[in-house]
């Protein structure tokens, strides 16, 4: 008997199929007929996603209507799609959590699609790009709409694949190829973690459905098993959401086109971990160990991301580390049990980070793929729109009220206190300051001062100009065509994004009594566990964080926006580049450690097997056998001398043996 009572009622919502499959249809269409569609591919792909977004809204309404707005508030839909075998039933799930994600995926996705029409205009593989994007949306929807762990895992894997495709979109570029592989493999590590959790769940309850699993969360598992499940699931989250130590793929993933970074590696896919934890809240609620662990790792990630963000010069890598850091916040939030706060941060982050990336994309696009902020400067006047976009994003991410980030970050930080983790709070607050510092650093260095694009790279301290940032042109012919792209295609989505990036935080206005919390109250039915009174009141916490943020901004201002900097920015940047501490330039040696602790030993093992055990030990033994057979063959051949006497001798020898046997045998009787 499959139980769905926690997650919703069975119902028929045919529109769900449309939402889910429309992007897949788009992907196949664009992939198969890309060459024929040519530049139509972009609009078609965007339109499909847009339709899906509208459909989601309609479906939201329909679902609300169907379930009614009565006190139960349990609206949702389960539809049986497939059955593999007993216990392996597949269906779609439509509840508030998946709704939230669906709206972001299709909504922000739609905007980024539109943006991409401009950004990718003139690329040779234009249609393929949109096919991948559509495929990504499909995969992400699979992930969030699935009503069971395996369906989630399928989506989980497919988004990884889409991410792989898009990171490696410029597949003739070795760095992109390497980055895509790294991303995929690390993500598979995550998949494997989830797989393990699935095994455990299936073996205990014989079903993969969320409903069955969560129903059993309280009593169906031993605490140890529950912790194991949570940790295994979290391995998946860590890989997908770039948590320490599985985060190293994310900065490299910036090899992909900027819209991809915005959609996949900022707004949606990397937050899948947050979704998973939020979705599996019954497990977390019942497993304090997992909460502590996940919260801690979230905090560490947040800090690590911020620290590494300080040292970057590549605009996309700065944003990537900031993404990592922000996801750290989310994970910290959902990890400690503040599910709605974490999800809120996901929501606001989706907007402002998309905003930031798209803004950065405009810059990069206009500077012919220049990504190093040292070579920028003074862009405020050249690209006022981009400046505005980035400014809004920076203010939001730094948590300056009333921008959206303020509400969500504040909520997360305060909830950590509420759930009794003052250390996490401290780390979070520190990170907020660091975030403010490096984001404003980005802002100042990029937009203030004078333009440095024509300065010799080495004088800026850029050691390997060919390696710093990605300069390889997308396509030799593309440049000339860029000019023809209508500018509004890129600016309108950014402009639209600015609205939620600024305002969406107000959903949380009122804290526990806010619209947001009420909206999710039926989902995160955590009961009223008001734990220890926090050591700070909400207001105090907010003010403290704001103070730290302001300190960060101040430091950034002092270092990069004052006369001392503008006096000789080139020399200042050069010195800073050279004097950057080695641990920071080497990203805290995470890559190195993984290389030496995991990759190299595995390869060594493989080489030992391939070069020693297989050919020498196993094959050697076989070869010895066959060689001795052939040696024996030749030996017998050499006995056959052709001399009659020798033959007679052999026969007499045989006779002697026979005679010996029969002499003895005859004596026995």
């Amino acid at each position, binding site marked *: 008997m499959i139980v769905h009572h926690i997650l919703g009622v069975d119902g028929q919502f045919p529109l769900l199929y449309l939402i889910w499959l429309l992007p897949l249809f788009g992907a196949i269409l664009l992939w198969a007929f890309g060459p024929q569609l040519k530049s139509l591919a972009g609009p078609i792909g965007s339109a499909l996603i847009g339709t899906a977004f509208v459909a989601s809204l309609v479906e939201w309404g329909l679902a609300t209507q169907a379930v009614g707005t009565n006190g139960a508030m349990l609206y949702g839909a389960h539809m049986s799609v497939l059955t593999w075998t007993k216990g392996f039933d597949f269906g779609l799930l439509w509840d508030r959590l998946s709704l939230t994600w669906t709206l972001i995926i299709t909504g922000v996705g739609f905007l980024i699609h539109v943006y991409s029409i401009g950004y990718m205009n003139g690329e040779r593989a234009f249609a393929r790009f949109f096919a991948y994007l559509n495929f990504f949306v499909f995969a992400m929807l699979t992930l969030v709409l699935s009503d069971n762990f395996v369906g989630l895992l399928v989506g989980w894997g497919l988004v990884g694949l889409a991410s792989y495709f898009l990171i490696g979109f410029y597949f003739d570029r070795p760095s992109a190829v390497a980055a895509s592989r790294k991303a995929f493999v690390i993500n598979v590590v995550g998949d494997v973690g989830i797989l393990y959790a699935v095994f455990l769940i299936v073996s205990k309850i014989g079903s993969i459905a969320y409903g069955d699993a969560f129903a059993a969360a309280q009593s169906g598992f031993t605490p140890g098993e529950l912790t194991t499940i949570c940790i295994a699931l979290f391995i998946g989250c860590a890989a997908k959401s770039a948590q320490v130590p599985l985060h190293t793929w994310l900065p490299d993933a910036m090899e992909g086109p900027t819209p991809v970074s915005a959609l996949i590696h900022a707004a949606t896919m990397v937050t899948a971990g947050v979704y998973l934890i939020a979705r599996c809240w019954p497990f977390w609620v019942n497993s304090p160990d997992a909460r502590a662990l996940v919260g801690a790792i979230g905090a560490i990630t947040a800090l690590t991301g911020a620290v590494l963000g300080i040292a970057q010069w590549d605009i996309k890598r700065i944003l990537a580390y900031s993404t990592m850091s922000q996801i750290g916040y989310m994970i910290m939030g959902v990890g400690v049990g503040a599910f709605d706060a974490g999800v809120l941060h996901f929501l606001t982050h989706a907007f402002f980070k998309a905003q930031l990336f798209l803004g950065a994309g405009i810059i990069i696009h206009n500077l012919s793929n220049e990504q190093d902020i040292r070579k920028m400067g003074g862009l405020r006047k050249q690209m006022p729109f981009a400046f505005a976009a980035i400014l809004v994003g920076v203010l939001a991410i730094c948590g300056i009220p009333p921008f959206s980030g303020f509400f969500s970050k504040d909520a997360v930080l305060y909830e950590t206190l509420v759930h009794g983790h003052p250390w996490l709070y401290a780390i979070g607050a520190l990170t907020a300051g660091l975030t403010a510092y490096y984001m404003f650093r980005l802002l100042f260095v990029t937009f203030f001062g004078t333009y440095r694009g024509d300065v010799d790279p080495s004088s800026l301290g850029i050691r390997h100009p060919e390696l710093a940032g990605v300069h390889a042109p997308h396509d030799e012919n593309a440049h000339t065509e860029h000019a023809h792209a209508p500018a509004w295609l890129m600016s309108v989505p950014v402009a639209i994004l600015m609205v939620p990036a600024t305002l969406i935080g107000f959903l949380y206005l009122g804290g526990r009594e806010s619209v947001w919390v009420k909206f999710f109250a039926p989902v995160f039915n955590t009961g009223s566990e008001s734990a220890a009174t926090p050591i700070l009141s909400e207001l105090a916490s907010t003010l403290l964080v704001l103070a730290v943020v302001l300190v960060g901004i101040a430091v950034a201002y002092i270092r990069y926006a004052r006369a001392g900097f503008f006096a000789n920015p080139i020399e200042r940047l050069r010195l800073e580049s050279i004097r950057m501490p080695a641990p920071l330039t080497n990203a805290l040696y995470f890559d190195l450690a993984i290389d030496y602790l995991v990759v190299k030993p595995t390869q060594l093992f493989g080489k030992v097997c391939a070069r020693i055990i297989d050919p020498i030990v196993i094959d050697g033994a076989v070869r010895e056998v066959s060689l001795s057979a052939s040696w024996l063959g030749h030996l017998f051949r050499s*006995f056959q001398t052709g001399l*009659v006497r020798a*033959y*007679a001798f052999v026969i007499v*020898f045989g006779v002697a*043996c*026979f005679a010996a046997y*029969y*002499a003895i045998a005859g004596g026995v009787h």
Partner: protein
Amino acid sequence: MNPTFANAVTAPDVAALLPTFIVAGTALVVLFFDFFAPKSARRWLAIGLSILGLIVSAVMTAHQYGHPVVAFSGAYLVGGFSVIFSEITIVATIISLLLTLGVGRDDQIAGSSALVLWSTTGAMLMSGAGNLMMIFLGIELLSLGLYCLCGMSLRSTARESALKYLILSSMASGFMLYGMALLFGATGSVSLAALASAHVGALFAMGVGLFLIGIAFKLSLVPFHVWTPDVYEGAPLTVTAYMSIVTKAGVLAVLARIAYAALPAESATMLLVPVWAVAGLSMIVGNLAALAQTDLKRLLAYSGIAQVGYIVAAFAGRTDYGLRYAMLYFAVYLFMNLGAFGVLALMSRDGETGPQLASFTGLAYRRPWLAGAMTFFLLSLAGLPPTGGFTAKILLLASTTSAGYVWLALLLILGTAISVYVYFKIVRIMFVRADEAHVRDERGPNFTPWIGIAVCAAAVFVLCFYPLTPSDVLPAIK
């Protein structure tokens, strides 16, 4: 009191002997008609008459099946068991004669046919022999003809083979004879029936031992196999083909009779262990030695050593199944081996020497049917489906394991595994794509072997799916 000449021969005796004597008599007829035959017809006449006589004999032999007769005071036993071996002998002779049709000199054809027929007579006598004298005479009749057949060619290797065969075989006959003498001494009688009820003493054991040496020699079991490769290689191809079956047929019959009926039951196992041992040894050594061969006839000689090892191993345990499947396997061996020899005959330029391995290069693309036939026979020799070799081998395995001789079954498997390499070496080279300019396409003198090949292939195929295993074949001595 003394049996007189008049009642020494009765009508049933003559009837029992008739098929055998028809073969012998045919030889005389062939020789006789050869004087009058026109030159162009000598060949056809000789072979045709021989085959005719053999067919008549085969039919008559078949009629004896199921009617055991003890003829000539126990000297000759016909009926169930010997019929099978006699038929195998006759069929082998017919097929060999078919191969012979295009080979050799016109003026020798009648003589050689006669010798073949007499050798066949010897083998048939052996399969029915009821006493030691008959065994000895049968072997000698068989062998003497073969010495001559081997040496008849003008090639020096043929004569060398004859010399080697003669010397070594006579020596082995000597051992066998001495063994018989000791057996006579131990029992006071030469009849096999007396052996069965004899007291097993030292003399008896030694007699059996020396006798079995002779058997092992004729069956070319290791280490008494040394003559086989040289003689097979040197002898004319058709003689080799003939010899590879017919000698074994007669001697296997003798061995079966000895093993199953003519030894005291309580000590038979002990007395026969060396035979099983040399059979096991033959499987391995024969196949190993064949690994290194490039002359096809020689290779088949070694393979024959191993194959006989399989057959003899089936006697181990002396079960009904063992004999039955040994005979089945031997029948299959007859067809697959002669089929292979038929292919060799088509590949041999002078019809006498065996082709070298290299001349098979790319045969599958030059003469696909011939290559297909050869592949088929080799598959059978290796015990692979869809051939009689497969079914017969699995039945051999079944009987050997059920008799409790698992070690022999394992050796059989091991030997077969080695033999796969041996046989597939040929298959491989036939399918290798070669630079055809370097391969001389050797073609045999005529196409008559195709008849033999077709018969053999059909038989091998049919025996896979319809393995004839006659019942009531346990050898009798009375």
